[in-house]
């Protein structure tokens, strides 16, 4: 197994620390929360958090080691450049296979240039221009449409996941009878349509500090707004509905089928746009 590079190691360490803090917070909640209000649900939440954290950390380590297979052969300057290009490509309408292919080509080019002892600035000039050139070489693809379609998919995955977790925690007699809080829906939509694209954009621009700051800021505003509404706005009907209304989101097989169809359709549209862009290039 090849060693993990310094930058990847930082990401893994950062995630491990976050996971550790999350586990401590969940454990503290379990210990200090009054037993009468606790119920079995909190034990389940703790178990789910720990399992999800461990799985995510495992995936992160595997991905970094796998990506390191060729990138680990690059010296520091070259590796940093490779990482910058890989990050910038994340914010694109390229499919995962196209990205992987491009990164293989780039790793090969960089390794050969490195072998000739060329300074990195003579190999890749302006990274933004380079990545723009790569994106254009796959034909025209509207990034906004791709973000919108990904948002639709993520909202659907998110809401299905919430209902599955609540079903497991509450032990409702049927999955379709499980209700979710109305306030979950705008939250999931907000994460899917705004937070994830923002994360992609900021990471692609190597603005990691901005990303963390934006994340903390947005979460703080969200929690703060909810707390204020809860404290001072409960006499307003829509606020009360927002906090207290439980809805049966996936109430039948029909709705589940519709949601799965929406996800499949989004995938198909993305595939079709990619397919058309290559066909248009071939027709030139």
């Amino acid at each position, binding site marked *: 197994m090849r060693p993990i590079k310094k930058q990847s190691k930082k990401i893994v360490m950062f995630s491990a620390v976050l996971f550790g803090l999350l586990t401590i917070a969940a454990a503290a909640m379990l210990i200090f929360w009054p037993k009468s209000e606790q119920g079995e649900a909190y034990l389940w939440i703790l178990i789910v958090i720990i399992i999800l954290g461990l799985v995510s950390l495992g995936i992160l380590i595997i991905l970094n080691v796998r990506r390191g297979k060729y990138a680990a052969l690059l010296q520091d300057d070259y590796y940093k450049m490779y990482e910058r290009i890989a990050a910038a490509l994340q914010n694109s309408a390229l499919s995962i296979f196209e990205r992987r292919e491009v990164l293989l080509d780039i790793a090969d080019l960089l390794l050969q240039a490195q072998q000739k002892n060329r300074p990195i600035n003579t*190999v890749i000039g302006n990274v933004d221009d380079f990545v723009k050139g790569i994106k254009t070489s796959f034909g025209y693809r509207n990034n906004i449409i791709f973000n919108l379609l990904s948002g639709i998919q993520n909202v659907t995955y998110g809401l299905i996941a919430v209902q599955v977790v609540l079903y497991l925690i509450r032990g409702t007699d049927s999955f379709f009878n499980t209700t979710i809080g109305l306030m979950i829906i705008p939250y999931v939509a907000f994460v899917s349509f705004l937070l994830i694209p923002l994360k992609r954009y900021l990471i692609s621009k190597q603005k990691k500090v901005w990303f963390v700051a934006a994340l903390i800021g947005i979460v703080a505003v969200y929690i703060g707004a909810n707390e204020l509404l809860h404290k001072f706005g409960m006499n307003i009907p829509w606020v009360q509905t927002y906090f207290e209304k439980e809805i049966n989101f996936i109430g039948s097989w029909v709705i589940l089928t519709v949601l799965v169809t929406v996800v499949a359709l989004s995938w198909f549209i993305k595939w079709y746009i990619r397919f058309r862009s290559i066909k248009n290039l071939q027709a030139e």
Partner: protein
Amino acid sequence: MIENTQLLRGILEGCILALINHKESYGYLVIEKLRESGFPDIQESTVYPILNRLEKRGLFDCKRRPSKLGPPRKYYSISEKGRMELEGFAELWKNTKQNVDIILEEEFK
């Protein structure tokens, strides 16, 4: 400065097609050949998007083969469509060069 112009990109496309028509090649070798042939400052970041675009247009047939240095290397060979494109480029270049030469000769007579 000229490196970013449409003109140079068009010329490079023709040159890359010609180099690969001559012999099956891979990305870095194409860049080295270009450097040896009068584009000494050409960078990977200029050539790779062009190679990729030409490939996606169906002007190359590509195969990956194992490489001792790292990842499997992509080899480009010209396709029938690529050969026709090259012939078109050569014809266009010949006419354009002739016309530009006439204008420049008169200007700097």
